[in-house]
């Protein structure tokens, strides 16, 4: 993904005066300046694809809610889905207020900042330059900010699978708000902002290090710190609704096209390549997992199939713009194999990463980030194999290290301050009853 976009202002920006003054006064925020920039034509095709990509990535959030919601026990379904929906609400607001500014504003250190990006007020009328068929064209800047915002929403939602069925809602809300500002936004800045220190080195097309590895390690850290659900692993915890998990997987697959192919910020050749390898890796991942289970257990399960889909999709995410079709098949297959054994190992180690956030997102993210080096499509200006491999490893280590440490601090502080984990009674009664006062499936009992 290109990360340097020259801002172009289309026409004079006119926030309602009253509110501007009021806002500026009350919030003590400076007026923003905006430079005059040349008037580039909007490319409606690219704009259309970026708009729909944004919608597709949002579709992944209810898709994730369904995926996770189907895997937990009946008494925790709504609480689990609320984890994804809360991310839509909380990060959805945070991102436009400060998140985008921190992630994509100028600044070379921990994060950036640009008062123009605060509340997106400076870019509402601006255009972002893109190249179409060698010519300078533009897309509305907002669509880029929104597309990126969907990534910011889904990442903390991914984590929630690791401590499913045992966290308090209020503490969870605070956790994801802080996590998104203190972990996601900096990583995003480092990798995708033009002055980020990893920019132009590690290839991370659509978010292997920024999204999946960081969410994976955050989940692992939280699962280890919080400890297992009451009863785990002695008591088996059966999925309440594998059918919904499959539906969710279907929506995730569809949404992932927007996730990966939209990350080209174009509607051209690389977009099509990204869509293609996404499709291929998902199919290959599912195919491989089905085969592994068929060989290992003589039974291919539906949960295995959707796990393979996810493994393939995660692995191809950092690689989607840069690997060949053969590489996509390879990454999908390898990711499934390694994730399969990672989950087997988790079960041996006995910690409770309930829905295998690290086992799928962390592991497949690492497989993809490192593995892509072996399957790169030739392109001008690529560093040598060894150099690239080092860049990728560096990216993975930075993500694991930074996200791991900060996530730990967050979990620790929030837990000490207000209690992150549900107590035994709450866990036994279930999140839906004890936290939300609701009942997921009224139909199960008579009404």
């Amino acid at each position, binding site marked *: 993904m290109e990360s340097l976009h020259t801002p172009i202002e289309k026409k004079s920006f006119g926030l309602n005066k009253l509110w501007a003054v009021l806002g500026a006064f009350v919030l003590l925020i400076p007026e923003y300046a905006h430079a005059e920039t040349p008037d580039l034509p909007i490319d409606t095709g690219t704009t259309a694809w970026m708009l729909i990509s944004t919608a597709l990535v949002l579709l992944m959030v209810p898709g994730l809610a369904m995926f996770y919601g189907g895997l937990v026990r009946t008494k925790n379904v709504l609480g689990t889905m609320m984890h994804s929906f809360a991310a839509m609400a909380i990060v959805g607001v945070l991102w436009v207020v400060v998140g985008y500014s921190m992630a994509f504003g100028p600044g070379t250190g921990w994060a950036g900042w640009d008062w123009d990006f605060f509340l997106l007020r400076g870019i509402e009328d601006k255009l972002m330059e893109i190249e179409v068929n060698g010519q300078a064209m533009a897309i509305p800047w907002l669509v880029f900010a929104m597309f990126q915002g969907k990534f910011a929403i889904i990442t903390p939602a991914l984590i929630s699978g690791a401590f499913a069925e045992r966290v308090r809602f209020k503490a969870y809300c605070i956790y994801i708000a802080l996590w998104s500002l203190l972990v996601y936004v900096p990583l995003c800045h480092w990798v995708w902002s033009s002055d980020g220190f990893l920019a132009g080195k590690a290839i991370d097309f659509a978010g292997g290090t920024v999204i999946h590895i960081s969410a994976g390690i955050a989940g692992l850290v939280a699962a280890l710190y919080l400890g297992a659900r009451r009863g785990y*692993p002695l008591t088996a915890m*059966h999925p309440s609704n594998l059918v919904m998990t499959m539906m969710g997987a279907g929506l995730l697959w569809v949404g992932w096209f927007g996730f990966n192919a939209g990350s080209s910020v174009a509607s051209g050749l690389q977009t099509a390549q990204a869509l293609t390898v996404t499709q291929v890796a998902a199919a290959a991942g599912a195919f491989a*997992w089905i085969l592994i289970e068929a060989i290992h*257990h003589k*039974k291919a*399960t539906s*949960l295995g199939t959707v*796990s393979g889909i996810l493994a393939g999709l995660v692995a191809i995410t950092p690689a989607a713009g840069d690997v060949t079709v053969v590489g996509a098949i390879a990454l999908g297959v390898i990711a499934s194999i390694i994730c399969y054994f990672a989950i087997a190992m988790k079960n041996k180690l006995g910690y409770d990463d309930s829905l295998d956030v690290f086992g799928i997102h962390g592991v497949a993210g690492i497989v993809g980030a490192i593995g892509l080096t072996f399957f790169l499509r030739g392109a001008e200006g690529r560093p040598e194999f060894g150099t690239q491999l080092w860049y990728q490893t560096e990216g993975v280590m930075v993500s694991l290290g930074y996200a791991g440490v900060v996530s730990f601090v967050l979990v620790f502080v929030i837990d000490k301050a207000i209690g992150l984990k549900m107590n035994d009674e709450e866990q036994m009664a279930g999140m839906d009853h004890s936290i939300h006062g609701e009942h997921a499936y009224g139909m199960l009992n008579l009404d």
Partner: protein
Amino acid sequence: MKLIIAVIQPDMLNQVRESLVAAGITRITVSRCTGRGKATDEETLYRGQTVAPTLIPKIRLDIACNDDFVDTCVQSIMKAAKHGEKGAIGDGKIFVVPLEQVYRIRTEESGGEAI
């Protein structure tokens, strides 16, 4: 009259019903439940791993019958509900409870002929 309550494995429902029908017992009430007897582990795969469930899905049958049918009924269930020759843990239980009266709602009949 007795009320026979049987708890069986879900995968055996069809076999048991056919066995009962073969023995002339067609009237039955069936519901879902979960349970735990001596059963330890059912082989269920969770992401490729074998896990031990606590409450295991079962099927409950309620059959009201006249006293002379009790044995036939119990035997039919027992024969059909077993996994394999020797049976398997989890295959279930049959409970026999006294039944004092039965009414058929449609005809308002009662007693043995209403069963």
